């Protein structure tokens, strides 16, 4: 076990905090996520440490309760997108030929349409329920994961050690799990760290179009959006959920950086 640097400790601490909120948020919150306790945008008080939101609900309580919904949706969507994108990407890279062509065409076609538009169409056609939301985000994200996995695997596939393994006559399972996956892991983990956080933003973007997580449930991205107007009047309300997202992003990525400190490899794409 190598020594854990300070930055990584900070990251681990942030993740631990979020984990606690994720697991115990509803019990830690003093007020309900739907409970109206005062005037909209009321300032912080001993009773309400972070003040009230745009409907007069306790901000801190909503942050705590919202942790489960926000982190849950992002985590579920990212895990799902990686478990779809990575196998397909590897398969396209290893087999090449028509499988690669067909998969790449499908992915390119989906990626040609701006994600918000795709999500808009799907969520409007099917209705914005939680499972539909998670699957939609996962599928749209999977296209990006697929491209990354494919490019990385292609790079590894032409390396000497992969060639050697192929010449030895190793099967598909061996190629994927023994040759490609271990070597492709660093960029994929790095991507996971960012993509997990982008999902928060994506959900927030969807709520901008009225399609994100549905009220009265709290989610951080939606809370930023719902309270954003307050910022123009010097209110801190929208800063808290935004800070929660930013903090978690930084925490996750500090840990990812530490995990990958000695294995810098690259890839990655835009939002």
């Amino acid at each position, binding site marked *: 076990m190598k020594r854990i640097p300070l*930055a990584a400790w900070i990251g681990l601490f942030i993740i631990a905090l979020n984990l606690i909120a994720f697991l115990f948020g509803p019990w830690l919150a003093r007020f309900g996520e739907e409970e109206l306790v005062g005037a909209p945008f009321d300032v912080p008080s001993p009773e309400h440490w972070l003040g009230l939101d745009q409907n007069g609900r306790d901000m801190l309580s909503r942050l705590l309760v919202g942790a489960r919904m926000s982190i849950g949706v992002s985590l579920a969507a990212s895990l799902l997108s990686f478990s779809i994108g990575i196998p397909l990407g590897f398969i396209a890279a290893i087999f*090449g030929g028509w499988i690669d062509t067909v998969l790449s*065409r499908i992915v*390119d*076609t*989906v*990626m*040609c*349409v*701006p*994600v*918000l*538009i*795709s999500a*808009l*169409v*799907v969520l*409007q*056609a099917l209705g914005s329920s939680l499972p539909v939301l998670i699957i939609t985000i996962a599928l749209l994200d999977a296209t990006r994961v697929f491209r990354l996995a494919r*490019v990385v695997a*292609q*790079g590894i596939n*032409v*390396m000497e050690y992969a060639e050697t393994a192929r010449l030895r006559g190793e099967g598909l399972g061996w190629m994927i799990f023994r040759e490609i996956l271990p070597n492709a892991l660093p960029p994929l983990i*790095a991507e996971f760290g*960012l993509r997990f*956080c*982008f999902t*928060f*933003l994506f959900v*927030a*973007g969807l709520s*901008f*179009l009225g399609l994100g997580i549905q009220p009265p449930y709290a989610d951080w*991205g939606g809370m*930023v*959006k719902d309270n*954003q107007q307050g*910022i*123009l009047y*010097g209110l801190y309300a*929208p800063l808290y959920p*935004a800070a929660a*997202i*930013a903090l*978690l*992003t*930084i925490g996750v*990525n500090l840990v990812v*950086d530490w995990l990958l400190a000695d294995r*810098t*490899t*690259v*890839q*990655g*794409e*835009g*939002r």
Partner: protein
Amino acid sequence: MALLILKRLALGVFTLWLVSVLVFGGTQLLPGDVASAILGQNATPASLAALRQHLGLDQPALARYLSWLAGFSHGDLGMSLATRQPVADLLWPRFWNTMALAAYTAVVGVPLAIGLGILTAVRRGGMFDRAVNVAALAMVALPEYFLGLLLILIVSVQYGWLPSLADTYPGMGLGAWLQATTLPMLTLLLVTVAQIMRMTRTAVLSVMDQAYVETAYLKGLKTGRVVLRHAVPNAAAPIVNVVAFNIAYLITGVVLVEAVFNYNGLGRFMVDAVSKRDLPMVQAAAMVFGAAYVILNMTADVAAIALNPRLRYPR
């Protein structure tokens, strides 16, 4: 190489066709149609029927798609269903708006991001590196419209340096245009610079660990020379890739920033068209976005192959 590009172009056209099918099919699944969108609360069965017939919506979907495709293949984008005006007249001004803002951001942002990336790579582990890194992560983690609002609060409402509306119109001077679009540019800059910078840093670092860079150092070359002559060229492929994707994002993905600054780009145009179910408008915007994506993607791929000898000759 030329053959490769030609092949990719053909594939790109094919992809665009797939996009048009996908978009058409997708919008058919949506609840409501252009007639109900126009009439809103005034929609009575009689007025709906009259408007649908007037707009040709009583034709079967396939026939409408084919007539659109026939027009499109001749360069005719058709007429907007809601306004009965040529789509091209409505589309192109917004297209140029989108491209101008993307170009403005890229011109400022890409050199800045790559510079920062190289600098942080060289000073790996130092205070500068850490500070820039955490700042970049924070930028990546904030919703772009929120960044935009913060900038508006500080730059326009508090100090009145720049306008909060990116209000552009035909015939405005360059100075006025720059003044109007600098705030949205800065917002997009914060989002994209963070990503490109992080990728550049990682790419350069991964090359710096290679043996030939060590050799260069051992030859007694200065750090600057080693980095610029040896490390950066070899790290170029992933950097080109991330730059291409960020430019694609600047063209296709900035609808929320457009909304915050009330900028009339293609993103809002398309969301508007989708919500009005104005299919020729949706298709035209989808084709532009698709083409932008295909071209940038192709550029990135070709660059990656050109820069990586191993990929140049696949099995």
